[in-house]
């Protein structure tokens, strides 16, 4: 069974998923951060594959991406780093990124590498649903990779149903219509969260965008199976002198 599905079976509430950019702050930090996330008590990790032109991201993740690329991070390097990581890491890991680098790596090669190293799923925000359905779905299934789609407050109910039927693992509910790292007030979106809850989707729902601390995490968890923290975490580790400690402290502050 896919580790994401296992996780939600065992722990349907308050799942904490943390995003970080591969190869940031230093090229060799990817596994250090991953290990520290697990040790600190994160339930899942989302590793960002840096892209030069991340359209859906705000300044914090843009900057981390630029620095990671300058550090030499690329998909091939990331797979090298992840080779053998399952000896130590048991939490589910998803890769997040933009479609162009994946296309250049080759979609099937990419999915095969994901399976080989032990990645569980993917978030590719600019891969359209139609394209996935008509071109790529069988490949994702062949290599055991869950594809996680996004919904937003602006997504119609019929489209949410469609997205839920194509998503595997969980549905990523964007808290407000924004790029990453904006602190829009989530409480304004209560009706949207209630609507999602009432729809009883087949997939678990994780809320992301604008989750930055214990309070916002708990608000999100009232309406969902958990939440995703990105920009706030990236900012926290950016200038860390002791990465392991910074990461673990960050996670504990959310969970305790």
């Amino acid at each position: 069974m896919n580790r994401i599905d296992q996780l939600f079976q065992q722990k349907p509430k308050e799942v904490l998923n943390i995003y970080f950019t591969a190869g940031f702050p230093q090229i060799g930090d990817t596994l250090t951060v991953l290990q520290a996330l697990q040790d600190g008590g994160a339930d899942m990790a989302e590793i960002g594959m840096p892209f030069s032109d991340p359209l859906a991201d705000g300044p914090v993740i843009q900057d981390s991406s630029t620095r990671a690329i300058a550090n030499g991070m690329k998909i091939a390097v990331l797979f090298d780093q992840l080779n053998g990581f399952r000896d130590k890491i048991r939490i589910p890991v998803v890769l997040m990124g933009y479609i162009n680098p994946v296309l250049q790596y080759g979609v099937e090669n990419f999915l095969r590498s994901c399976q080989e190293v032990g990645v569980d799923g993917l978030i590719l925000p600019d891969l359209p649903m139609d394209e996935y359905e008509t071109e790529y779905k069988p490949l994702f299934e062949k290599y055991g990779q869950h594809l996680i789609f996004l919904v937003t407050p602006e997504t119609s109910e019929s489209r949410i149903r469609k997205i839920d039927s194509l998503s595997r693992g969980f549905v990523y509910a964007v808290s407000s219509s924004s790029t990453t790292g904006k602190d829009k007030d989530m409480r304004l979106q209560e009706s949207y969260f209630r609507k999602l809850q009432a729809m009883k989707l087949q997939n678990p729902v994780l809320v992301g965008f604008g989750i930055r601390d214990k309070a916002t995490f708990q608000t999100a968890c009232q309406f969902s199976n958990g939440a995703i923290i990105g920009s706030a975490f990236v900012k926290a580790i950016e200038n860390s002198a002791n990465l392991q400690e910074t990461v673990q402290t960050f996670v504990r502050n959310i969970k305790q």
Partner: protein
Amino acid sequence: MDIAINTSQSRYHVNEKGYYGEFGGAYIPEMLYPNVEELRENYLKIMREPAFQQEFEQLLRDYVGRPSPLYFASRLSEKYNTKIYLKREDLNHTGAHKVNNTIGQILLARRLGKKRIIAETGAGQHGVATATVCALMGLECIVYMGSVDIQRQAPNVARMKMLGATVVPATSGSKTLKDATNEAIRDWINNPVDTHYIIGSVVGPHPYPDMVARFQSVISEEIKKQLLEKTGKALPDYVIACVGGGSNAAGAFFHFTDDESVQLVAVEAAGKGVNSGFSAATSQLGKPGVIHASKTLLMQTDDGQIVEPHSISAGLDYPGVGPLHAHLYTSGRGKFLNATDDEALAAAYELSLLEGIIPALESAHALAKLKDLDLQPDDVTVVCLSGRGDKDLETYIKHLK
């Protein structure tokens, strides 16, 4: 004028899925879906409304000053021993072809009930054309512009401000057109309900490339009529246009794509030379990929990072090309050439001295290839003179020394 609303039969036009051959589509994150979908569902419907067409036509005539002249450039023709006509988009209000598209899109935005307009700009011509129509309609206008371009196109920045627009510098990446486009898209993600994004070229997610091409198709519609009046033949032998994203070329080619006797010549910016590492010649340097939500040819590294382009001309300084041009290139229907910074400068001086017309640096790239086409005395060539050179005077003066 029919703004090309019933002419989508050509195999060089977009198909119902938003593709030109293998290029195009809408690779958008979900946050953009409602906006793009609203546009996709409505653009043709609105463009077909008689009231819309009437308003569009009237503004193009009375406000923009269309039809723009098709001018027989006799001294230039003499120099190249052939027949050269200039399609004078430089004489449009605001000084370039860009306004054809902004008039169309502002009327569309109003019908969609949008209150706030955003745009990206490179040379500043599209920014000025957007600020202009926003002033005309009393709508708020925010223009994203790379900080490098804010420096090199200062007169246009001043014009936008005088027209009431807010100019926001884009400071990421190469700080040019690509980055301004990123910022505009991010703005749209953050303002999903009341905002319309007026893209300035035939780039971006479907339906933008098709919509912008249709608004610009008035260029070739007029060329056909004017050429028939002047020469007795509606079809030239060559149509030449510069290509950044490719909107003036799309407009100049639109009604000729199925006339295979007409050679369509697209001129990209070679910068300091195609292989110098400082170039924007996308068809030569690019591979298929996704930029600004469109699958097209794209300058990129082996691992799929977008490469920063270079051109002396801010309007051509873009690492991609509209999907319809990627299709014209790979299908062989279009001939893709490129001109260096130096060739463009020389061509700008040549046109100024021979015809008394100072062209935009972008348009000068198209003019620069007249020498390379082996034009025969009886050949009829139309060059799309996409804009005037006022905005580039500082660059021209610097190179005069």
